[in-house]
């Protein structure tokens, strides 16, 4: 049984001992029904991925497995086919890791320097560029994807891993820059001035004072970027080629492929595997995840 499913049992039991009032029944009843809607897909994913195909064909999608088998997981990881390649999702996983690591590092590095420059080293026009960046958040990607293909081709990066890294850095920039700018603005100017008087320069202050202070926001930015980049589909499908497709693209190709018999258990194991990275981050980071997405929503 999953954790999520076990948590569901809480409010429905006789626990609210003091008052089993009508108000409480409605309150906890509504919440439990809603919780069921949210928890159900995760439960179905887990349960389906542990059943054999005969059991799936015969039985109920919500029933727990009679006979637990891990074969679908093994198959999804190392044997599932996309086109002629039958080396499973593991390839997509490692591709995603290879895309993820440089993208997260580069995007956070660039954005933190931006935020630092925008808050402490403003130069004529810096706010204009920042405003453009903020407006850019709202431009649909579809408007920019084709010219970027041309740009990447000119740079010799189209279809390569680094091209995608660059794209993630560009499109992660507005939000992260905002995040870092707001954070660094709250650092007292006196501290900055004192460092200047002591002879520290742009980079000296950045590495020795600002970056060490920015640890909490760095973690938030990392959570934001890891989930965002891991979950990306559109950029992966446009800017890479089949050999280096990220996990989401490969997953879609495996599950929605038209040839062959549909193996729902393998499909669900593959889906769960792809969701595992962001889910792990979500369950571990808890409040920080919430802070990250809230920071993204509340514009400064």
């Amino acid at each position, binding site marked *: 049984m999953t954790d999520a499913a076990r948590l569901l049992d809480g409010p429905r039991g006789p626990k609210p001992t003091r008052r089993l009032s009508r108000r409480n029944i409605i309150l906890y009843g509504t919440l439990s029904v809603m919780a069921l809607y*949210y928890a159900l897909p995760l439960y179905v994913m887990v349960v389906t991925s542990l059943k054999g195909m005969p059991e799936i064909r015969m039985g109920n*999608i919500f029933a727990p497995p009679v006979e637990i088998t891990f074969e679908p997981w093994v198959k999804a990881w190392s044997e599932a086919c996309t086109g002629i390649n039958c080396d499973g999702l593991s390839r997509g996983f490692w591709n995603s890791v290879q895309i993820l690591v440089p993208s997260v590092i580069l995007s956070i590095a660039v954005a933190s*320097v931006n935020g630092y420059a925008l808050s402490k080293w403003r130069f004529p026009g810096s706010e204009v*560029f920042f405003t453009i960046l903020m407006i850019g958040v709202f431009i649909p990607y579809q408007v920019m994807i084709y010219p*970027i293909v041309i740009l990447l081709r000119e740079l010799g990066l189209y279809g390569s891993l680094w091209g995608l890294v660059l794209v993630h850095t560009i499109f992660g920039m507005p939000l992260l*820059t905002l995040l870092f700018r707001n954070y660094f603005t709250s650092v007292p100017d006196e501290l900055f001035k004192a460092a200047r008087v002591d002879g520290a320069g742009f980079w000296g202050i950045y590495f020795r004072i600002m970056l060490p202070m920015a640890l909490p926001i760095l973690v938030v930015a990392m959570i934001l970027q890891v989930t965002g980049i891991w979950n990306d589909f559109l950029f992966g499908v446009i800017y890479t080629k089949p050999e280096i497709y990220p996990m989401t693209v490969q997953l879609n190709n495996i599950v929605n492929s038209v040839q062959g018999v549909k193996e729902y258990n393998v499909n669900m194991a593959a889906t769960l595997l792809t969701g595992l990275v962001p889910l792990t981050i979500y369950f571990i980071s808890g409040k920080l995840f919430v802070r990250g997405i809230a920071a993204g929503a509340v514009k400064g």
Partner: protein
Amino acid sequence: MRTTDTPPALREDSSRPPNPLFRNLTAKLASLPMVLTALVVFVGCTGWTIVHSFTGSKLLPKLKWVGFDQYEKLWNTRRWLVSIENLALYGIFSLCFTLVIGFTLAALLDRKIRFEAAFRTIFLYPFALSFIVTGLVWQWILNPDLGIQSVVRSMGFTSFEFDPLYNASIVIYGLLIAGLWQGTGFVMVIMLAGLRGIDEDVWKAARVDGIPVWKTYVRVIIPMMRPVFITALVVITSGIIKVYDLVVAMTAGGPGIASEVPAKYVYDRMFSSQNLGQGFAASTMMLLAVVVVLIPWAYLEFGGKKHD
């Protein structure tokens, strides 16, 4: 108030560089990625696409002007019209339901209940998942032969029908179920933050005056949370216009063209049917839609402040 370009301590002793362009050169160089992104990508690429939407580009972008031909053709294409209709339907429903569900969940969680953290965790976890994962799970749950439909039928309701992914007239609601599952938790979090920001005295005053709880929400709390609602509105809307992955994973636009959306039209025209001009025109229309939504918001948000 804020540090000027050069702190005074330095301005006096160093001989002023001849060109102000070189003042704080390091800071400017370090901002180069931002400047390039803003100018080349956000301004340049957007402008490039708009300009090229007035050309007859097919396989390759060409500056062969055709005026508004692409737009005319676009609005005479059935698939585009279906896409727009779907987006409008999906958008309106998604907006209403997300706001209502998001607010209701937040309000319920704010009633000082037990297990709040557990409920919050359950409501929000789908937001960590990608639209691809979301679409594939719901595709499986909504599978007519083995999913919900078959389970309900096996319970004795043999004529029960619920196959949104194979029924063109209700496929959009299938997408909606999945989309709401993924996104409402996020709006709930924004709403909950807004509710927590409301002064406890407001509640006390309402209680003293004997105003029922629901009435306090409708008359007092929701009007007070206007900025939160507007933020949620903008976040949801900009998300809706971009809807793409979910459709690809769940229905691939089908059955037929019943669940096509504009973002998918753009992608298909640009990258699979080699009709760049159509793709550019369609994406420019998407941009226009965003502008139409955002300008009133920007006016309310930033224009309104001046009157205060």
